[in-house]
């Protein structure tokens, strides 16, 4: 008899028989998480490139590389999830435009191109410099990367800068669009009470910005420790402002979302309550505990005007908490939405697989890949040394 219940998600109450084979699992949890990190990192990079906020100059190019490296891996969870991954391009070749998912290939493709272009313009002067100084294979590689354009006159650099800025300006609505769109994929489904909400795209977008800023804080602190360089106080203060803004707005909107569900109290609201108390209680506890921690920590740092080492420690912890909280939130949305049966009379409890095509192991591998790629990318295009280029503003 065991084989019967082997793959069935345990449930209570009444669910449709087909529901016990859960359609979207942990891979679909990390997909919006990774795209979210991209959106957040890109926003920080744009704060420097577009709005010329100088305090972000130290991390702006690193943020751009982070966004690019994470974006490379954003579609990979989807590919692992597809039943027929070799047909993935069917959605691009013959998109069925009434589907919220049909545009994904185009949106993501456009965004990747935009990020690559912006990165190239932001790093072109460095690439040219390195193609002249480096020898051997790497010299050749940098030579190719210049694409034959080795003009580093102030005039040419000014043009570079202008183009990078315009690309960043296009990038802001694109990043917001990409992530708002991920929220729309969930929010537009009328069948799932837990997803079907007009606030869903906004929640996804804002939490994405929060988690991306969190990631950048964590990476900036860790990388600076490894490189044994000073952490710019000004930059950290700037990141603190962004994180505080993000967490405040996210918490308000997520609170509103819950309030709406319970205040409207549509059919099956008791089951929603049981979902929060039951299958996703741990996720909800982590999400809200982390959110409250970030809110309290950032507020305190603002009130007491914290600087220096204490700022670094607490902002690092806040950034980490933000990342964990948003990951928990993704789990609560994606898995929680399916744990609440379409019958509204039953609840499933999902237990992730450890090994297999759609398993925690694969999730772990995919989650590590962007960091490794980012490490390699910073070797290829060092984002920190801008001193050799005095003309850069």
């Amino acid at each position, binding site marked *: 008899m065991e084989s019967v219940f082997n793959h069935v998600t345990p449930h209570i109450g009444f669910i449709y028989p087909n529901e016990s084979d859960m*359609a979207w699992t942990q891979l679909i949890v990390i997909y919006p998480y990774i795209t979210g990190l991209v959106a957040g990192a890109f926003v920080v990079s744009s704060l420097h490139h577009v709005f010329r906020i100088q305090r972000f100059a130290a991390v702006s190019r690193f943020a751009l590389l982070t966004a690019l490296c994470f974006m490379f891996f954003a579609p990979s969870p989807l590919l692992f999830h597809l*039943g027929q991954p070799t047909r993935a391009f069917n959605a691009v070749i013959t998109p069925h435009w009434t589907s919220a998912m049909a545009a994904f290939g185009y949106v993501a493709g456009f965004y990747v191109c935009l990020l690559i272009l912006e990165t190239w313009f932001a790093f072109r002067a460095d690439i040219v410099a390195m193609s002249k100084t480096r020898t051997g294979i790497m010299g050749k590689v940098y030579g190719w990367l210049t694409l034959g354009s080795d003009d580093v006159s102030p005039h040419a650099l000014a043009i570079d800068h202008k183009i990078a800025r315009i690309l960043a300006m296009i990038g802001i609505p694109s990043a917001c669009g990409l992530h708002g769109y991920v929220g729309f994929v969930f929010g537009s*489904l009328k069948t799932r009470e837990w997803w079907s909400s007009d606030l869903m795209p906004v929640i996804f977008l804002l939490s994405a910005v929060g988690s991306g800023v969190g990631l950048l804080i964590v990476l900036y602190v860790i990388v600076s420790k490894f490189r044994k360089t000073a952490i710019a106080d000004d930059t950290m203060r700037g990141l603190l402002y962004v994180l505080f803004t993000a967490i405040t707005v996210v918490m308000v909107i997520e609170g509103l979302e819950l309030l709406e569900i319970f205040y409207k109290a549509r059919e099956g609201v008791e089951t929603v309550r049981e979902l929060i108390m039951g299958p996703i209680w741990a996720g909800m506890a982590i999400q809200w505990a982390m959110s409250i921690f970030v809110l309290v920590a950032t507020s305190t740092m603002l009130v007491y005007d914290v600087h220096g080492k204490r700022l670094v420690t607490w902002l690092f912890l806040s950034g980490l908490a933000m990342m964990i909280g948003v990951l928990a939130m993704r789990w609560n949305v994606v898995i929680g939405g399916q744990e609440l049966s*379409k019958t509204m009379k039953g609840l499933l409890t999902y237990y992730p697989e450890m090994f297999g095509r759609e398993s925690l192991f694969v999730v772990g591998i995919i989650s590590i890949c962007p960091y490794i790629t980012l490490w390699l990318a910073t070797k290829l295009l060092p984002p920190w040394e801008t001193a050799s280029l005095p003309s850069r503003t």
Partner: protein
Amino acid sequence: MTTLDENAKQEASGMTRRGFLGFLGKSAACVGAIAGASSTIGATELVHGKRGFQQNDEQFAEAVNNPPKVPDYNWNDHEWAMGVDTDRCIGCLRCMEACKMENSVQMDAFHFRTWVERYVYLEGSNTAVVDSQSDPKNIENAGSETKFRFDNRYRNVKVDKAFFVPKLCNQCEHPSCVQVCPTGATFKANDGPVLIDTTYCIGCQYCVQACPYGARTFNESRGTVDKCNWCYHRITKGLNPACVEVCPTGTRIFGDRKDPESPISLFIRNNHVQVLKPEMGNAPNVFYKGTDKEVV
């Protein structure tokens, strides 16, 4: 008068004799069919395990790549629909088993094209207790992954009201599954059913999420989604869907709405019918008679 009476008597006894003989013949045929069917199932189960009587993968590939040509069928001439008279359903689950055999649906407890739900109002209760054949207790009771039975769990309690509701794809007029399919692999046929091109489906399962009725299921081994198509291969040849064919009580009614005298047209005309979850705006094409507020 007497002669007439005797004639009538003889005629009557003749009728009885004929009827009796007919009954004997039918019984024999039934017994034979049941024995034959069960032995086939039993034998193949023994040989091939749980998917014994299903199409194997080569047969499936053949059916997908070389679909049978159906001459003389114009999908613009038909508008198929189904009716479910829940008052008649006895929960025997023959429809579900026939469907699994006919359409090679996975032989386990969590992939179905059609299924049956049991609604029970216990004495004094204002809400129903619901289960389906894949409720763990029912599976345990049946003791098999291929033969589903409802258990007799209510035998010692007082029940106010109880009924069965067979479910299947509603072949909606505005199907949300078709709306969300990113490739257009699933589509609404002109004659009503929502079909899947399994050679084009990418297996993203967005449609599984979008279906309000839980009618779609994922076939792991084929990497594509599976759903009821009202046995499209049968109805285009003028046959009934398998579930309709085997239903012993006439719970399921099938036909062409373009034919005013078809069973379904009469069923819809002569009964107060409802659809499931009308608030979803999907406009289902399966019409239920005698459902209840508790039916989801």
